[in-house]
């Protein structure tokens, strides 16, 4: 066999192949055609290739390249025809029931109280607040004295505060973090202090001996009550929705003056009065006020130069009202059926 004969055989095959491939009407016929053209046992190309060894050595390289090129063309044509036939053919064999469920994975959850803290943190982060923390077992001075509690304030009563030693308490609020932060860092201060606090309250549907609180503190030159109102109202709109109305009521905390309680208009009745808001049309959200000069002085700051405001809220209360949880103890029980509801 000469190179010319070899090439002629290839050319013939290349010329015939497209029509034969196109003629294959189904996958069975296609398989026959493929075997006839390029099958390893008896295919035409295999036949032709078997003649390669008989060619003169110097022609083999060209012959091989040409054979390969023809093979690529035929393979491509076969493949594309198979695709057409497969698409046209009805599905065969055992089908997969795609309605069956995906492989299961346990879903983790963030505690509903943490979800509220997260949201509060996120909103205040946008306003440049950072996170400060402090100890839960605290010196009475940080918990009371530095916060301008008078010596015989009822809150210091054994009935209200858990004591762990001489002048040592489980903090009754996150406000000691205010004093620690003011002592540690110079103004401007813009911090949020989430954490657990303790009260000598027996467990009942609306009280717990330990609960989360989140504190906010701003101290700088020229900070006013207007900043307090503006920031907290902004927070309320971000947290409860853009049309949320707020009101500020006079209140009393030893460590703020003036002190104000912030309410938002009841979302259930839109202010007309219902059982959720005890007919008042408003729901109490947080306590706030201008930092008392005595607190700044306790932390070694010049209370003429610096002013500030602070707030504190209870995320557990927000969580139970937002999720309709009837008993605060559910938050502590850690029943998996409850936790799964937040997945």
């Amino acid at each position, binding site marked *: 066999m000469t190179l010319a004969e070899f090439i002629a055989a290839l050319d013939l095959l290349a010329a015939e192949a497209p029509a034969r491939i196109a003629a294959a009407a189904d996958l069975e016929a296609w398989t026959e055609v493929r075997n006839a053209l390029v099958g390893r046992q008896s295919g035409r190309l295999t036949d032709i290739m078997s003649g390669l060894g008989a060619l003169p050595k110097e022609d083999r390289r060209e012959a091989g390249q040409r054979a390969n090129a023809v093979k690529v063309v035929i393979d491509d044509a076969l493949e594309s025809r198979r695709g057409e036939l497969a698409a046209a053919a009805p599905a065969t064999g055992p089908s997969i029931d795609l309605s*069956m*469920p995906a*492989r*299961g*994975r*346990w*879903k*983790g*959850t963030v*505690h509903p109280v943490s979800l509220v803290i997260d949201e509060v943190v996120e909103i205040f982060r946008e*306003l*440049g*607040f*950072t996170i*400060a*923390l*402090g*100890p*839960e077992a605290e*010196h009475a001075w940080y918990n009371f004295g530095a916060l301008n509690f008078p010596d*015989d304030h009822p809150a210091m009563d054994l009935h209200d505060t*858990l*004591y*762990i030693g001489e002048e040592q308490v*489980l903090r009754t609020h996150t406000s000691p973090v205010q004093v620690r932060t003011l*002592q*540690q*860092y*110079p103004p*401007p*201060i813009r911090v949020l202090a989430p954490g*657990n606090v303790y009260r000598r309250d027996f*467990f009942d549907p609306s009280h717990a*001996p330990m609960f*989360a609180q989140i504190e906010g503190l*701003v101290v700088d030159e*020229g900070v*006013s*009550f*207007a*900043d307090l*109102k*503006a920031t907290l109202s902004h927070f309320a709109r971000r947290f409860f929705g853009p049309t949320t109305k707020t*009101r*500020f*009521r*006079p*209140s*009393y905390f030893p460590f703020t*003056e*003036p002190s*104000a*309680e912030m309410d938002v208009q009841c979302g259930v009745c839109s202010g007309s009065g219902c059982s959720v808001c005890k007919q008042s049309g408003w729901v109490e959200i947080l306590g706030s006020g201008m930092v008392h000069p005595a607190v700044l002085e306790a*932390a*070694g700051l010049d209370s003429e130069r610096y*002013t500030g405001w602070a707030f504190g809220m209870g995320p557990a209360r927000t969580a139970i009202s937002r999720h309709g949880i009837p008993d605060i103890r559910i938050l*502590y*029980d*850690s029943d*998996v059926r409850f936790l799964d509801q937040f997945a």
Partner: protein
Amino acid sequence: MNISHEWLSRFVPHGRDAAEVRDLITAHVATVEGFERLRADLEAFVVARVVESEKIPDTKLSFNKVDDGSGTLLEVVCGAPNVTVGATYPFARSGTTMPAGFKIEKKKIRGFTSNGMLCSARELGLGEEHDGILALDTDAAPGTALLEVLPLGDVRLVIDVLPNRPDLLSHLGVAREIAALTGTALQRPDELRALSTASLALAPARGVDHVKDSGLDVRIDDVADCPQYGAAIISGLTVGPSPDWLKACVESVGGRSINNIVDATNYMLHGFGQPVHAFDATKIGGDAIVVRRARAGETLVTLDGAERKLDPSMLVIADGAVPMALAGVMGGRASEVTDATTKVVLEVALFAPRVVRTTRRRVGLSTDASYRYERGIDAAAVGQMLALGAALLAFVGGGSVDALLHAGAAPVARAKVTIRPERVALLLGEPVGGDEIRRLLESIGFACEAGASSALVVTPPSWRHDVAREVDLIEEVARLRGFDRLPDTLQGARPGTVPDHPLFTAYRRVRDALVAEGLHEVRPLPFTSGRDAGTDGADLVRVQNPLAEDEPFLRQSVLDTLARRAEYNLNRMQGDLRFFEVGTTFTAQGKALPREEQHVGVLVMGARRPVHFTEAQPPAFDAWDAKALAHTVAEAAFPGADISMVPGESPVLWRVQAGGVVVGAVSRLTLDAPVWAKPAFGVEVLLGEMPSTPIAARGQHAHAAGPARSHANEPVRYRALSVTPTAEFDLALLVPDAVLAAQVEEVLRTVSGAQLERCELFDEFRGAGVPVGTRSLAWRLTFRHPERTLREKEIEGRRTLVLKTLEAQLGVRPRTV
């Protein structure tokens, strides 16, 4: 504090309805928590017009057709003589409950149907007259609610008075605020206008700690305990029912009318905020009143019938011999006013808050009087209250005032406080003129005079103990103007100097990682019985006044509380549990505050995955899952640190190390668990310590200490991605039981050299073909040269070297099949 809207309106004729007053008080003074219509029992009654009326023969009854606004005329039988066609009357439809408690039902009377009741004043609880049904003087359409037509239905406002404002614990106190807010003048209530002014004119005999008049000796042992003591002698009294107006006052604030004398003392308390007490004068032994500390061993039976043991920390009112009352807390039974009383000594005093608080706590008895004394009453008003109280008792009891005795020191003049308009503007964020500041402060009784530059020098009124600094005056200005009127424009702010606390960011990383692993965050209580502390308990922190005696300690381990939560779920047949908590632990440190740490606790037990049709029985969590979770926690808690797990002693499976330091443990947990429960595994890792040492001394700061050190980690360095192919081989090894897999792996890694890319343990086997005392472990080693393809010979060489070293160092040989 319960405030009656009607009573309040007699102190200040403000002309506003109760809802408006409520809103004013809440917006400017203190929160009104309750709004109770006192005649809510009349809410169902309506106005009805009699359209037709005819007598029922041989009875006093009439048969009427009544228009109650419902559209159909109702047939109603009525027993009253005064039914008039065309007139309107209060009407109870059938189904209405009467104030007396019974329900009006539809019924047949003498063959006539009656669908309700036309009511008399007495039936409505509006008076005793029962001349017939109550004709209404109104043009209101039938069907209108009765309460809209009749001027009845006082409203009780329940005010949440905070500890700084004891002046609001009376109708007078609230009236002062309403007067200021509405621009209305205060007045003496109508019911007090008829009082004989003669007694008011009677000059109280006054001495410092001892006064004597009309045969009564009043002595104060220590004016520090009792700065003022007033006593009025009133004789010729008749104890009996109170007049209606007095009864109404007492009941309007939720009290119960007792008799005219007791009710009058309650009038003084609720009306003026002055606690007073009436002694039966004939029961005062030795014609003396002595205000002194109790003596050890003395006892007193108080008005509530309880016998109280007294001690010298308590202040009492004694006669010549024995205690008659606990000062400022409660009177004694022996000297109580009875129906037979004709002469009383009325006490109107000022007791020191501290001694009243001590006495109240010692006897465990809080009263309206002690509540007010503890918070502070108006010291300057005691003399006036003495005269007024005496006159009131004399008036309602039909007696006369014989003498007024007033011992004690004159109240200390109040310190003046300066207020600067520019400071007001700074703090409130808007300017308020000096004249406006003066107007507002004067409206609630503050005396203002001009000070240096634009400042005002202000003397607070005697009833305001809470005003001591400029900022207190600024609060008055702010609240009187109204917080809601102040501006609230969001302004830019300078960034703060405080870096995020590293424990918070670490908490977030750990939490995100564990939630991604399918775990539930929990936040249980940190109290524990101390039984599972795993120590002798010496360094447990005990709460001195615990809520529950069986859980008086603070936990040292987060797993301790997680284990209890697991048991709670197991009790509810829930055994697939995946909990974690990032929480605080406490370890006692002698007299110092406890060492406080943030720990991550993880507890897993039960199914590793939910059931799926490809896996009907998912495997349960095992130690290897717990080990993986420990890695997850430690890597999130200590990013960048080398994490390793060192086998520990049971029940500890591994000690967790970060950067070579032990930071936690993985352990198998022992729970109080039912038989069906799967094994439970716990991980506890230290996140960090929360220091509690003081930052600086009181009144000092530590700003010079400089900013906190940054904890930023080294960034990951890029390693070139090689394009050369890998070569791999498997090693099945017979490992003696004494040899750890980690030791083998250590050899594999050191001997294999830098081109070892992966070293994976993929099989453990014991049994056929493996000699007793050994196990088969199989590793796959993958190599790659960064620049070229590794040659067969090189790979073979490594295999040989590895096997030789393993045999030499550990006695580990290849497993031949």
